């Protein structure tokens, strides 16, 4: 069987046949087909099983509103469920499978649900699975999830990449139908920057699906000629296969471009889809309209379709939904379908027109004042039952029924800022109301102007008006001639019956469900939606909402306007999550920062750790070291015994200049800085306004009006922001300029008793760095290695005699190599952040672990660093009563007893007290194994800690099920007098 329903003509390329498979059947189609049209051409009507009742379902539309034709596309990791067949461009080798059926589409065991429908109506879940409560998660939900639902994801990582992009324009035109094309021509000719997006791969909108002439040529040819003209304009960008999915603030629109969905596999390195953020000064929504169905018993049988889709398949794709087709309409548009079908040689069984005054037809018998009341046929339409005007019934043979219940303007994007559509009686549809997104106008069928001539004229008029608002004058041009027929609708929503009549085919909601919701007093549209799930499927009820509302309106005796609508939200059409992630996946989730010695550290085989965005060397394993502790212990001992080197470029460096720099630094630090001499460095404590410690670090005075502040790595950005706030908002009276210098300098800590000896080989001889000339806390501009400008600071985080040497970042790689060479005689040892952490814990230096935002200077034992002699940020509030209580938390050292470990995060309890929040006395902030003391040690805070040195406490860690006995000691495990660092 090959393309039994293929007709002549159409906009397909018969020279390019394509083969594809559906549920394992090998089929063929042509370039220019969608999967939907190719299935239609191959005579396949049954494409899926419904969500809840597993009813056999077929394609009902030819566009993005399709509720039924959902398949799994592709295989392996690229498997994508719930793909709309109407939006899937056919490609060679396409592999599609139906969903939600077992064992097969034709014989689905779960269709037993359909027999149980009387139990499964609206509110079924709410009523049935109330108790016992714990059964919900364990029993009910897994069963329901398995039975209901659509396709399944592969569970593998998506092998494709997605991109993000940004575009700007004067006028964004959404939809390339007659209104959109005319608007684009008008704006393009006026020289405006135009972006024209269309979800189809071929521009023209309805013109591609109709046979009307425009401007004396076929509508689709006119569309092609418009695109050809627009393509010559540099100021117009045409984006096919692109859907505007949302409107956001300030003229920002999200557009998803399906770059490679029409290919089996994207080209290497190229994205599958791009999420464009379009900044538009003005936008014009030309999204057209969606045809709605009329509800009648068993109206979900495969073969029952929108009338516009039926003729669309015939006209554009040369694919006939059936050999014999009946038409059911309440307006003149249904008659167009009859004309087009007859022209294509299809037998039009009859036009069942619910209007008593229906026009006559040249091509088929018109059954006036009649309605379709039921359908029959196994797994597809065979007959329809017509309830005649006179009361009798007639059975008609037909393989398809084309239903036209009128057209709903696609108002969705106008509702994205909670704009409410308004009801327009003459077309029996909602049109965009006031209060839509600012800068978004609507043209053509999207605002209820359905004729081609009307849409063309409106597109031009709206474009001119929108451009005028932004100062661009566009000229009106002569309109191409086109049909201007009225559709003459007489609303008709549903045919009364005794069986189920379907509204929302994606979520299996029937007229009966609406009645039940009404009966049970779920009458507000928002309640109706949630109780019945009407309009809650992936299509947001594009083919069902208005039907449901009209039935609720009938039941409540209100108008449809009074009944109102629910809110449409982005995305307009279902959108893969991957496109929102864009390139931000895996290792590319965020950028990294590399310290200047990174490449050298890689050569050394360092193990790296993420510290914020920085990638820092954590330790440098040597041959034979199998456990990280071996490396870290070695690095610590080598540094304390001789000399070690560590890249500390990651610490924040802020260059502070200006006549008011000294006063400024004095104001942001709680301790005194005004009198710091040039050439000296001081440890500073920075408080938040609320008196808590914000950060600490050393600040060097490089000149009378020049300071260089160092922050912790983690707080570099936050401290800079804080300083800018102080500079701009709190002390604009001071002359202060700030600039970040973090990236400018490669800075290395050189620590250990032999650090001076190593540096003396590199520092140029005119600079004396002896203890006398360059004592502890000295700093200065020097040169190294034959004239390279550098900065030297005699500061120590490790507690050893230590320096930090800074060179311009571009020399960082050379500097670490030079340090290693100069240090060779002293067995210089590079150390990573672990050893750095061990040594600072041994020395009792605090870091981010301790400065956790709840800690005061007093908690740290540094209350004397909050100067009373001056004003500084946080000084006043640090004196709050509760913060100066005598029994407050106090920083202590903790040493494990009996071979146990100190664990950070443990809470501290006095021996013999219950382990509960009431008796909690503090907690452990940092822990390390000290190779120097050969013991597990830590830092922590405990109530009244300064007076408790020597006391044994219990550290409890219920999360990890651990407990330990710890001895409270001084936080300075090493060299408490500071002799080493002054050596």
């Amino acid at each position, binding site marked *: 069987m090959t393309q039994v329903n293929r007709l002549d003509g159409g906009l397909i390329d018969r020279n390019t046949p394509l083969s594809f498979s559906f549920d394992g059947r090998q089929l063929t189609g042509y370039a220019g087909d969608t999967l939907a049209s190719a299935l239609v051409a191959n005579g396949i009507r049954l494409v899926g099983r419904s969500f809840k009742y597993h009813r056999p379902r077929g394609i009902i539309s030819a566009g993005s509103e399709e509720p039924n034709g959902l398949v799994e596309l592709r295989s392996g990791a690229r498997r994508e469920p719930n793909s709309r067949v109407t939006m899937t461009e056919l490609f060679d080798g396409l592999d599609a499978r139906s969903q939600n059926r077992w064992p097969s589409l034709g014989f689905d065991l779960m269709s037993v649900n359909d027999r149980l429908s009387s139990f499964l109506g609206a509110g079924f879940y709410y009523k049935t699975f109330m108790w016992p409560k714990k059964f919900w998660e364990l029993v009910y939900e897994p069963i329901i999830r398995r039975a209901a639902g659509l396709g399944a994801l592969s569970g593998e990582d998506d092998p494709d*990449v997605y*991109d*993000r*992009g*940004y*575009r*700007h324009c004067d006028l964004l035109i959404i939809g390339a139908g007659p209104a959109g094309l005319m608007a684009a021509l008008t704006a393009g000719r006026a020289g405006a*920057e135009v972006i024209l997006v269309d979800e189809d791969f071929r521009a023209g909108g309805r013109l591609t699906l109709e046979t009307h002439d425009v401007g004396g040529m076929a509508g689709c040819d006119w569309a092609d000629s418009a695109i050809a003209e627009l393509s010559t304009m540099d100021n117009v960008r045409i984006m096919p296969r692109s859907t505007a999915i949302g409107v956001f603030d300030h003229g920002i629109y999200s557009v998803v471009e399906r770059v490679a969905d029409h290919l089996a596999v994207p080209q290497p*390195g*190229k*994205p599958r889809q*791009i999420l464009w*953020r379009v*900044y538009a000064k003005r936008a014009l929504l030309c999204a057209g309209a969606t045809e709605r169905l009329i509800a009648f018993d068993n109206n979900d049988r495969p073969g029952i379709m929108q009338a516009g889709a039926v003729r669309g398949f015939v006209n554009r794709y040369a694919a006939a939904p059936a050999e014999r087709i009946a038409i059911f309409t309440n307006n003149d548009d249904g008659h167009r379908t009859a004309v087009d079908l007859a022209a294509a040689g299809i037998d039009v069984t009859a036009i069942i027109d619910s209007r008593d005054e229906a026009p006559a037809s040249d091509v088929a018998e018109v059954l006036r004042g009649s309605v379709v009341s039921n359908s029959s046929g196994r797994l597809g339409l065979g007959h329809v039952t017509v309830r005649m005007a006179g009361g009798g019934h007639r059975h008609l043979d037909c393989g398809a029924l084309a239903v036209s219940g009128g057209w709903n303007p696609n108002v969705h994007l106008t509702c994205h800022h909670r704009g409410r559509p308004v009801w327009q009686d003459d077309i029996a549809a909602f049109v965009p109301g006031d209060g839509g997104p600012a800068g978004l106008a609507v043209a053509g069928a999207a605002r209820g102007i359905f004729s081609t001539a009307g849409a063309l004229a409106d597109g031009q008029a709206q474009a001119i008006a929108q451009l005028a608002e932004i100062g661009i004058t566009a000229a009106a041009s002569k309109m191409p001639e086109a049909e201007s027929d009225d559709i003459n609708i007489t609303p008709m929503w549903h045919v009364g019956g005794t069986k189920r009549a379907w509204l929302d085919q994606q979520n299996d909601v029937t007229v009966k469900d609406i009645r039940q919701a009404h009966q049970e007093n779920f009458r507000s549209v928002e309640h109706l939606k949630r109780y019945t799930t009407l309009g809650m499927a992936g299509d947001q009820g594009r083919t069902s909402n208005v039907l449901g509302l009209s039935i609720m309106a009938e039941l409540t005796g209100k108008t449809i306007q009074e009944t109102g609508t629910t809110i449409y939200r982005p995305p307009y059409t279902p959108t893969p999550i991957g496109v929102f992630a864009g*390139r*931000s996946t895996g290792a*590319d989730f*965020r*950028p*990294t*920062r*590399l*310290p200047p010695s*990174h*490449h050298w550290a890689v050569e050394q085989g360092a193990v790296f750790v993420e510290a914020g*965005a*920085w990638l820092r060397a954590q330790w440098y394993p040597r041959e034979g070291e199998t456990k990280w502790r071996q490396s870290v212990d070695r690095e610590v001992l080598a540094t304390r015994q001789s000399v070690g080197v560590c890249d500390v*470029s990651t610490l924040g460096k802020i*260059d502070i*200049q*200006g*006549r*008011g720099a000294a006063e400024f630094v004095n104001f942001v630090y709680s301790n005194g800085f005004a009198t710091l001499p040039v050439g000296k460095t001081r440890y500073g404590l920075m408080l938040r306004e609320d008196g808590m410690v914000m950060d600490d670090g050393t600040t060097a005075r490089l000149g009378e009006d020049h300071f260089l502040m160092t922050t912790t790595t983690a707080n570099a950005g936050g401290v800079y922001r804080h300083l800018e706030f102080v500079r701009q908002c709190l002390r604009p009276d*001071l*002359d*202060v*300029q700030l*600039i*970040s*210098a*973090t*990236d*400018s*300098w490669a800075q290395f800590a050189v620590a250990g008793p032999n650090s001076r000896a190593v540096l003396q080989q590199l520092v140029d001889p005119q600079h004396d760095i002896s203890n006398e000339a360059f004592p502890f806390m000295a700093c200065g501009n020097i*040169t*190294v*290695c*034959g*004239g*390279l400008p550098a900065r030297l600071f005699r500061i120590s985080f490790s507690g050893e005699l230590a320096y930090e040497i800074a*060179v*311009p*970042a*571009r*020399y*960082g*790689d*050379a*500097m670490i190599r*030079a340090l290693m060479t100069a240090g060779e005689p002293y067995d210089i040892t590079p150390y990573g952040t672990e050893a750095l952490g061990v040594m600072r814990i041994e020395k009792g230096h605090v870091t981010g672990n301790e400065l956790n935002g709840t800690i005061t200077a007093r908690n740290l034992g540094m209350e004397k660093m909050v100067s009373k002699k001056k004003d500084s940020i946080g000084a006043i509030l640090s004196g709050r009563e509760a913060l100066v209580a005598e029994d407050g938390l106090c920083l202590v050292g903790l040493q494990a007893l009996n071979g146990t470990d100190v664990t950070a995060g443990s809470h501290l309890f006095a021996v013999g007290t219950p382990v509960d929040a009431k008796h909690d006395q503090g907690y452990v902030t940092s822990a390390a194994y000290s190779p120097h003391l050969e013991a597990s040690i830590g830092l922590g805070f405990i109530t009244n800690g300064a007076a408790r040195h020597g006391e044994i406490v219990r550290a409890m860690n219920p999360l990890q099920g651990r407990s330990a006995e710890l001895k409270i000691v001084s936080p300075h495990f090493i060299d408490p007098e500071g002799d080493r660092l002054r050596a």
Partner: protein
Amino acid sequence: MPRLTPTTALGGTAPRIDEIGGLRITEIADPSLAALAMRAKKNAAFTKAAKAAFGANLPAPNTAAMTDRHAVIWMGPDQYLVEANSADASLAGTLADNFGSAASITDASDAWVRFDLTGSDNIAMLERLSAADSRSMTAGTATRTPIHHMACLILCREAGASFSIYGPRSSASSLHHALITAAASL
């Protein structure tokens, strides 16, 4: 001359050049840059010194004053980034002399990595990277913009044809990765 050999921001000894499709992405090995900020209440002296130093008026927000020797890029109120057109290690020192007490100057040569973009597809590439409207940029448009979460700067040297992208030096590898990935995805 110091005995140490500098490396580029990407860690090489020579600047990296990538040619992808119609695009050429060139790492600039040794940009000479200085951060220039006006000191309080020194408007007249600052403006005068700028005119003398650059031979041009100071640029307005989102622009750069482009001269034969410098690009002076607006970075914030009374703050500029000065780029020397050819490698000039003495740039910050010279500016300090020129401006005296009217400005605070900081050598920023090592704060940034600079990539130059040329070729026919650079607008298409920039559209994948930055929300800035590169299509409407003219010579001398300068915009701070995030690129893949990095705080960057785009300087247009020739409309549609030539751009420089500045990013934090420590993120040079990530920025380079973002650029070549975007170039390859067009």
